[in-house]
Every structure is written in structure tokens, then in C-alpha cells.
């Protein structure tokens, strides 16, 4: 919990800023039998990012990175919408889209684990080609569909709660179960912490890595369904564009090191919420579009600085608790005392 303190503080601060600009920002009402309000919006629009970030967390914990999630988002949405527009059943369309996503993720994992290509390049291949694949599926057009059942995934409500939020909760619960109740988390952290040692301890690193990339792609695929369902259309070129950067940012803000090893699912969710709140803040407080990125850069910098123990020690003047008897925390090679 201690690790999540700073992300929580930052999130609270951001929400506070909004309250100043939008007086009834925190109010949640029932409208047409749905929950309605800015907070709900943040959760709803943040849902795809949260999903992608969850998958990304596990990938990063193995010491990898997945740049292709944005393309998978586009492919999944495109395939599902194409199927539905051709009068396929929603279940079939969803299954097909998610199946393809898993396949693409496994492909990434295969390149990283078996072929031994550096993750950033291995996934760059799919990032570039996948975008083309998505457009190939949509034929470069935006596929518009009208299908209430499909609409539920990203734009619908269940028991007054946006379905997307429930979906994120479900995925979070499943992920938490897989990594903390089952032993996936330990093995992922072992592979990310020291791959060779894990191999010699009998960990099937290759299998773990493939599973993790496949899982990340599955999350991305689900996010793709959500995004396309939300607007009832699939946009092969723009859906999920640059979402990988936001997801990586969310993971890091949540306290997971890009070098692999220890990870925090709760932190990631908080990180994604911070980013989404930031986006919403930009819209609501009327930051002009020309300065949007500047504002984002500023907040990201401040957030990362506050997160950094070194910064707090050196600038805010707290006594520094060395995280380990190693002079450079976050470094791969550590000295034993």
C-alpha cells in the first residue's frame, strides 16, 4: 500500500483541480437509469487504457515492452465490426477478434522468447504491420455498425453501471487471481528479475513470456472491442493510436520498473486513472489544443518527480531511506553486501 501512496495523492490532487473548475464535478447522478457524472466518464473512457495497461504491466514485469498494443486494438475492433457488418453473431465476432488478438500476442511472445529479438523491435514489427492489417480489414474505411448487443461492451450499462467498468473489474480480478493466487506472478517476477537464474531454477521462461504477451494482446483486443463498440464503428487507422505510450506511462506511474521484476496491478490501475483524469481535466478546464501537450508534459514530469524517492530526498529534503544496499536503485546488477 505504501507504494501506492504517491499515485493516490496525485490522483486526488488532479480531481481537486477539476472541482475548482467544474463545481459539480464529483456529483454522480442517476440519469435514464444510468450512473452519470464526470467521475463515471473518467472510469468509462479510462477503461480501455486500464485494460491495455494491465496487460502491459505483466509484459514489463518480464523485462519486455509491447509497442504493438495500439495496433492490436485497431485490428480487434476492425475484425469484430467487419464480422458484425456482415451479419455474423456478436459472440462469434467477439470470439474471433479476441482469438486473433491472442494469436498476435503469441506471435510477439514467440519472437521475443524463441527467436530472441529484442522486445521493442519485435513488437515494433507488429506495431507497423498491424496498423496496415487493421486497415486491410476495414478496407481503409470506417465500418459503422448498428448492433445493440455489441454496443453493450463499450457503450452500454449493466445494473446502471457502465459495462466497460465492470469488464475492467472482471479482468482485474482475473489477472489478480492469476498472478497472486496462482503462481504466475512469482514466475513472471523471477523471469523479469533474472532470466538466466529462472531458467536454471526450472522456470519455463519461454512459455511464461509467450503467455504474457498473449495476455497483453488479449487485453488490447478487449480494449479494441470496447473502443469500437463505444462509437459503434471501427477505425483501422486511428483506433488505439499511441495508446501504447499512455499504457507504458500508466505502468511506470504505478510503480513498476521498466527493467522488469516487481510489478503492481493496483498501481497500474491508478496510473491509468491519473492519465485519463489528466485528459479529462484538459477538456474540462479549457486548455487550448495548442498547449494540451505542454500541459501533459508538465503534469507527467511533476508526477514522475514526486514519484521519485531521489527527488523527494534531494529537493523536498526528506531523509532518504536507501531502498537497498546498492548505490543505484533500479539498476540491473546489484552488489551483494
Amino acid at each position, binding site marked *: 500500500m505504501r507504494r501506492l501512496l504517491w499515485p493516490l495523492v496525485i490522483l486526488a490532487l488532479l480531481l481537486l483541480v477539476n472541482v475548482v473548475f467544474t463545481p459539480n464535478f464529483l456529483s454522480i447522478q442517476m440519469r435514464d437509469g444510468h450512473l452519470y457524472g464526470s467521475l463515471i466518464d473518467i472510469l468509462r473512457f479510462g477503461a480501455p487504457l486500464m485494460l491495455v495497461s494491465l496487460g502491459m504491466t505483466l509484459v514489463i514485469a518480464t523485462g519486455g515492452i509491447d509497442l504493438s498494443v495500439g495496433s492490436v486494438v485497431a485490428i480487434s475492433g476492425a475484425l469484430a465490426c467487419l464480422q458484425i457488418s456482415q451479419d455474423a453473431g456478436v459472440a462469434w465476432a467477439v470470439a474471433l477478434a479476441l482469438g486473433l488478438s491472442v494469436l498476435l500476442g503469441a506471435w510477439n511472445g514467440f519472437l521475443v522468447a524463441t527467436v530472441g529479438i529484442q522486445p521493442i523491435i519485435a513488437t515494433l514489427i507488429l506495431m507497423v504491420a498491424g496498423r496496415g492489417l487493421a486497415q486491410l480489414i476495414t478496407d481503409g474505411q470506417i465500418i459503422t455498425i448498428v448492433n445493440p448487443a455489441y454496443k453493450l461492451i463499450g457503450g452500454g450499462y449493466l445494473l446502471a453501471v457502465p459495462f466497460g467498468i465492470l469488464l475492467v473489474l472482471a479482468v482485474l480480478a482475473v489477472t489478480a487471481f492469476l498472478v497472486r493466487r496462482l*503462481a504466475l506472478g*512469482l514466475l513472471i517476477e523471477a523471469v523479469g528479475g533474472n532470466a538466466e537464474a529462472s531458467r536454471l531454477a526450472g522456470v519455463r521462461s519461454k512459455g511464461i513470456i509467450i503467455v504474457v504477451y498473449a495476455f497483453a494482446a488479449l487485453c488490447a483486443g478487449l480494449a479494441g472491442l470496447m473502443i469500437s463498440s463505444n462509437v459503434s464503428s471501427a477505425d483501422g487507422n486511428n483506433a488505439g493510436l499511441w495508446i501504447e505510450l499512455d499504457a507504458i506511462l500508466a505502468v511506470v506511474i504505478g510503480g513498476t520498473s521498466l527493467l522488469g521484476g516487481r510489478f503492481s496491478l493496483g498501481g497500474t490501475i491508478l496510473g491509468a486513472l491519473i492519465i485519463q483524469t489528466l485528459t479529462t481535466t484538459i477538456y474540462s478546464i479549457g486548455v487550448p489544443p495548442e498547449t494540451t501537450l505542454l500541459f501533459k508534459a508538465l503534469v507527467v514530469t511533476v508526477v514522475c518527480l514526486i514519484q521519485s524517492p531521489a527527488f523527494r530526498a534531494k529537493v523536498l529534503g526528506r531523509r532518504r531511506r536507501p531502498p*537497498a544496499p546498492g548505490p543505484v536503485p533500479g539498476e540491473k546488477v546489484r552488489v551483494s553486501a
Partner: protein
Amino acid sequence: MSGKTESLTGPILLMRGIGKQFPGVVALDGVDFRLLPGEVHALMGENGAGKSTLIKVLTGVYEIDAGTIELSGQQVAFSSPLAAQQAGISTVYQEVNLCTNLSVAENIFIGREPRRRGRIDWKRMRARASELLAGLGIDLDVSTPLSSHSLAVQQMVAIARAVDIEARVLILDEPTSSLDAGEVEQLFDVMRALKAQGIAILFVSHFLDQIYEIADRMTILRNGRLVGEYLTRELPQVELVAKMIGQVLADLEKLHGEARAFDEPLVQAQALGRAGAVEPFTLTIHEGEVVGLAGLLGSGRTEAARLLFGADHATGGQVVYGGEPAALRSPRAAMQRKIAFLSEDRKRDGLVPELTVRENIILALQATRGWTRPVPREQQDKLVAKYIAALKISPAHPEIPVRNLSGGNQQKVLLARWLILEPRLLILDEPTRGIDVGAKAEIQRLVVELSDGGVAVLFISAELEEVLRLSHKVGVLRDRRLVAVLPNDDELTTEALMETIARGGAR
């Protein structure tokens, strides 16, 4: 404390009341230490006594929490190793801390490369490096990357680097752990020459014979506290050990009396080999048998062990396990046959530093079960508690990151990882290197216990006494070949072993 003993000139280095804490560990508590010019001063203590921490505090790797450091009478506080180096303190750290991606010559000179008209003079640098290494009795191509050389060579390179820096204080933290006898002698010659120049040398080693050969005085630490400072000639070995571990140690006898006959062969390597690593060898290990592997570093000991564990792929021959050929395609396959392997390089091939002690211990067990069948938490806690107690892992806290433990305790954690699996063949690659006498004895005793319980052990060590003390038979490797397998009878002595290694043939 100063001026208590016989120093004519004042100490060049004086540390007073040094304190240092890490989360969950008090590493140093009010330690005093002094170093005189022109002496070799041994810093003694068990693993985790605080030797390495004291050195790192002195050389600016860590900040101190309490106390003062004086160099030549001036109070100093080094903010970085660079600052310490500039003040004339040159250090070889315990684990070889060099850049293996750079060439040998560069590792010696990086940061102070010879330059001509502003650019690095590679030619001169290589020539100087060759010269320096020649002085240490090593002849190699200094333009090759350091990674292509053995740990022993790497250690000599680190020493060459430290020696070349114009230093007033030279710190050698376990420089000899992977050197052979000849190399150690070379090093001692160099040390004596430096001493004669008035350089103060701080020396850490677990080899007591070496201490008594080279050190003038010694300071003993225990559990982060100062035990005392002594003249080497006035302190008998037995007393030294007693002071280090805080109790009297029973003599270590040859633990396995003699070679005996075993009935059941457990593992047989049949013409097993790997091109470029170790030539095909044949070796039989029986249940309950301890087989020692002797040979110099780089003789193929580790490579042979890795083949038996499936860590590398064999390019020829086969392993017969329990009478049937076994394809050991991966460590997993070996583990399924109850083979365990404690690797030589614990930093690289063993620990997952940020995971806790508990997680490191159960890692192999969990790996055999796959991620879908977790080891229940109660069972984990029970197992971990059992081995923490049995192996005296300290601090005895299962939930601290393993990187916060000392080297010896980390080794025990890894040992626990494999013992949990209840292996039938346990391969131990240099399990006692860089470990103090107490822990060493514990590990040796454990080997005997395991063997009595029917576990086969393949024991690899550079220390021939240790190999002889434990093994039922000894395999000797030389130049990547298994040259002899000798029964450990009365005729087999360290001399005889050494001769076999040197001659490369059977008696």
C-alpha cells in the same frame, strides 16, 4: 584507540565509530578501524560480519550513518568511488566489478587511458596493459573482450587495475577466491613490493593460510561490531576462528573415511560432451556417493556439471539415469529426474535479487509445478522456516529482499531452494567459495548428511582439501577433458591430486 599500539608513524587511515544501517539489517555498529602505511592488514569476519560494507563505506559507495573517517589526519567524506580513488584509495571489490563488454586493456585503464594529443593512445594502452599483467604472471591478448576470459583472469585484471592506480591505500576484498596457488603467489609478490613502497594494504580473504602468510595485523568483526585488532603472529589460528564465529569450532576431519563400493548407479554420463566446452567424458555417480570434481578454473568442471543438469545442450553422448537413457533437454527435464544444480555464479545464475528470501527459496519448487498449481502459502512458510533454521540463514526473516543478505547467506538461500526439492543428485558448483569458515563447515557437514541419506552429490571445488575431505571418488579435469577418476583411498593426497592435474594423466 589511536596510539595504543606500536606505530611510529601515525595511521594513514583512521575510521572511528562507523555505523551503517540497511532496511532490516544493522550492517555496522560503532566500528573502529585503522591502517598503517607499509602494512598488510587483514579484515576478518564471517559472512555478514560487515567487512564488505565497511569497505564500501570507506570508498564512497555508501554514505555512513555515523562516525568519522580520517585520511592522513584529515577528515574526509567520499561522495563516490571516484572521489575515494582521487584521494588515493584504490579498491578491488569482492565480486569482480568490471565491464565485461570492454577489452582487458580498457578495463585496466578506463578513466585514465594514456592519451596523445587528446586522443586515446590505444597502442600504448595495450602495451602498458600487457606489461602490467605480465608483472602478475599473466600473458594474454589484452585487446580481447574481458567476457572471453575466466573469472580468475578477470580477478587478476581487477588487481592489475588497482595496483596501477597511484594509491596510498590499496583495498583487496577477496581477491584470491578464484585464483590458483601460482597466481596467489604472484599476487603476494606484488603486494610485498607495494608494501615496501609504504603503501597500506587492506586485505580480505577466507583462506586463513593466506592471511598468515601475508598479513601483518588483523582486525576482526562479528555481526557488524568490532571484536578487536591483533598482530597476526600473536594470534593462533584456532583463536582467530573462535573470535570470528564467537565459539570454538570442532576440528574438521576427513569426513568420509574411505572409498567404498556402491551398488546402484544413479546417473551415468556416457561419452557426454559439448563441442568447445568439454570433451566427451564418462562418469558414474551412485546413490549416496559424493563425487568430487577437481581441476583448475576453465578446465571444464562447470561445463561438465551443466551438461548433467541440462543447462547446456550436449553435442554428443548421453546421460543414463536410473538405468534408462534420459534426454536432459532443459534444466526442467533434469529437475523432473530429481537433479539439482547449485551454480557457481550466484549473482548471474542463481539469485533473483529483488524477490524475497521466501520467494527465492520456493522458486524451483514452484517452477516444477508450473504457474497453475501454486504452492499453498502455509506450506511455503513452513518449508522456508524449516530451511532458514536448518541452514542458519541470517537475518532469519523470510520477507526481506534477498539482495539485502550477505554473500554467504545468499548462498544458503540458493542451497535451500534445491534442498526443498529433495534431489537425488545434487550438483554443487563451488558452493563454499567466498564463504567463511563457519558456513563452509556447515555446508560440508550438510553434504555428508545428504550422502548418508542416499543422495548422490557432485561436488566441485577449487580447494583440493575440501574435495578430498568429502568425496568418495574424485574426477580430475584438465584442459576440458576428464583425465582421471580416482578412488579416494589413503594414497590420494592433495599432492597426488595436484600432480594429476599438472600431468594430466592417471597415477
